[in-house]
Each structure stands twice: as C-alpha cells, then as structure tokens.
C-alpha cells in the first residue's frame, strides 16, 4: 500500500473462531488471506451488520469493542444463539487487495478480541441480530482464572449439575422459544419500540 499508488483496493475482514468452526467475513465480495477464503456472508452467522469503532486504551482502561452480526434467517437459531460463544477469539484486519482482485498479502491486524457477552437484538422490523460485546484478548491476563468469564458454562465445569447460574436473573437466556418478551406493565412506552430489544426465552419469563 504505497501512498504513491493512484488506485488501491482496500478490504476489512475478520475471523471469529466460533465453537463449530471459523467464521470468516469480509466487507464485500470475497478475498483470500493466509490461504483462507473470506466471504461477505456466512451460512450461519450471516453478515456484519455493524462494527463499533475500534478502541485502544492505556493506563487503567482496557480495549474493547462491539460487533453486531445479522445471522442468516434460515440458519438454526441454536447454531448462533448459544452460550459457548463467550471466550471465542475474534481478530480483525485491514489490508490491500492485490492486482488479482482477491488476494490479500499484507494486512494489518486491527484487533484481537475475545467475546465477552452476547446479546440477541430482536427488532420491530423483523431483524434478529447478534450483538457481541468484545474484550481485548490481553484482558485474559487481568484475572487469575485466565480466559474464563462468569457464565453458566464455566460454572458447570466447576460444579457440574449445579444450576444456580442458569436461574440467575441477570443472565441471557438461550432457550430458543422465539417469543418476544411481553409488554412490561411498569414500562412507560409499552410494546417494543425500534430500539428496544426483547430478551426472549428464559430471560423473558424471569423479568
């Protein structure tokens, strides 16, 4: 990528190391990087709907990020709305596409994240998005139990069969019952506005 080139082709792309295999997404068309093909959509996780600004930090702050994916509506909900996403690694790159229109040889890694939490955004217009809150991968070093996040999955590894975390009210429900949460009698607006999201599933029952 030389500043003297009158014409260059740039591409941003990311790799999510999901439990069922890598998800490789780029911002349009397709490209090859490190002998792997990145496409603009994935059969399960769909496309990138929104990527928050990359945030670097120093001092006592840590880098983080947010990524919103628009999963394929035809994919099984359980394949993308799952409790084993937290802890998965996500990397993002920006690189110049070579003259063949597909190969990226030199790319700069923009971020190296872990999925912290996932949230399902069910919207009034039918959109069903997966919002991933991301933490910097070095954040693993901040805590004694490296790489573990407070989740039912982790809890089960320590106390198998102890369901206290499953019934914790502050956690996301992963039961794919597909229903939007009922109107809360105490809420002022009522119903689901364009920017209000239903938790769905277990969470909906507990609130």
């Amino acid at each position, binding site marked *: 990528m030389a*500043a*003297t*080139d*009158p*014409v*260059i*082709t*740039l*591409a941003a792309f990311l790799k999510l190391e999901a439990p069922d295999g890598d998800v490789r997404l*780029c*911002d*349009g*068309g*397709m*490209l*090859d990087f490190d002998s792997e093909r990145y*496409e*603009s*959509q994935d059969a399960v996780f769909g496309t990138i709907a929104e990527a928050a600004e990359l945030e670097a930090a120093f001092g006592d702050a840590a880098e983080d990020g947010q990524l919103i994916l628009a999963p394929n509506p035809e994919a099984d909900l359980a394949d993308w709305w799952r409790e084993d996403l937290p802890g998965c690694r996500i990397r993002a790159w920006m690189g110049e*596409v070579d003259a*063949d*229109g*597909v190969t990226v040889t030199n790319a700069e890694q923009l971020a190296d994240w872990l999925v912290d939490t996932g949230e399902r955004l069910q919207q009034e217009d039918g959109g069903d998005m997966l919002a991933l809150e991301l933490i910097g991968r070095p954040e693993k070093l901040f805590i004694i139990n490296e790489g573990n996040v407070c989740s039912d999955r982790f809890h089960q590894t320590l106390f198998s069969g102890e369901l206290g975390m499953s019934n914790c009210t502050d956690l996301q429900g992963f039961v794919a019952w597909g229903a939007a949460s009922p109107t809360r009698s105490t809420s002022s607006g009522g119903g689901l506005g364009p920017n209000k999201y239903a938790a769905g599933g277990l969470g909906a029952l507990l609130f």
Partner: protein
Amino acid sequence: MVAVTLPDSPGPRNVQWELVDFGGIVPGALGGPDQRVNRLGNRWRATVEMPVLTAKQAREWSAALVRGVRLGVLWEIVQPGFSPGVPGRPLVAGASQTGWELDADTFTPGYVWRPGQFISVLIGTQRYIYQFAESGRVETDGTATLPIEPALRVSPGDGDTIEVVRPVMQGLVAAPAWAYDVDKLARGFSFTITETR
C-alpha cells in the same frame, strides 16, 4: 425463497444502470495527488421505467411487484438496440475462479462479445450480473476468457450457467412511495432493482 419473475411485457421505456460502488476518492490535501480507494463487493442497480400499461398488464405487474417486495424479483434484462447474437449455451469452465476474468466453455466458436454487454451467472439459485469490459472472440474450441466488471463476488462452480442471450437480474425491489394501485401503474411507473450481493 423463490424470487418472483416479473412479467416480460411490455418492455421498459428506459433502464438506468447504476454501479453500486463502495469505493471512493481520497482527495489530496493542499494540492497533493488524489487517490482512488476501491472496495470489494461492487454490484448493479437498475431503475426501470415502464410505459403506459393496459389494465390487464397493470394487474399482472401489481401482483408481481407486491409479492416481489417480499421475495425479491427476477427481471429479464432488456438491452435496447443490442442483439446478443448466437452464443450457444456457455458454461463456467473450472471451479474457484476469482477476479475480473471468467473462463467459460461450450460457446459457439467464433462468437464475438461486445463491451457493455450484460450477462448473468447462475450460482445455485442466485444470479449475478456482470458486464463485458471489452470485446473479444471465442476460440475455435468454444472456450473463452471473459473480461468482466465488477469482480466476481462469488466463485461460481464448474459448469454453472452463463446467461448471455437472456440475462436475468435478481435482486430486491425497493418498496416505492406509490401504492401498488392498478390505476397508477397503468399510467406508467418506475421501480428499482438492486442486487443483494
């Protein structure tokens, strides 16, 4: 999802082709050189202007467009003043192709393609529109390397169909401000199809 095929008559009065371009120009500050930054994934959008329709035609278009808003549409491309000739039944030659060239075979030997001519490539159930960037001639064995714009967005499989005589655009039709009212449609209307990928 099966896209709705739009009626093939009457033909459009005018078609405005637009390249959906995700790139841009970075202007040079203080008189420095400009730089064009291309992004991947460029595709096509067509705004189709229809002539005055009969009531029967208007009802057919109304039905197709209403369903097409939900399912997407298939629209046979009209290239006014252009005859595509006899290309044979060309197929994609070789899997995993990328970039701005598409290898094809089983063309009619000696077929000449023209710059600006549209083709569609059928991959699975999805069609992708490409335009020939320059003219060329098919080899005597029916093979050709087709110069296309924009770059291949999806790698076709070996033996996928290339539609040259009757290319078909597949995309989403935007719900316009006007109603799908037969009376309004009969007086002539326009709609926009945008490729999704």
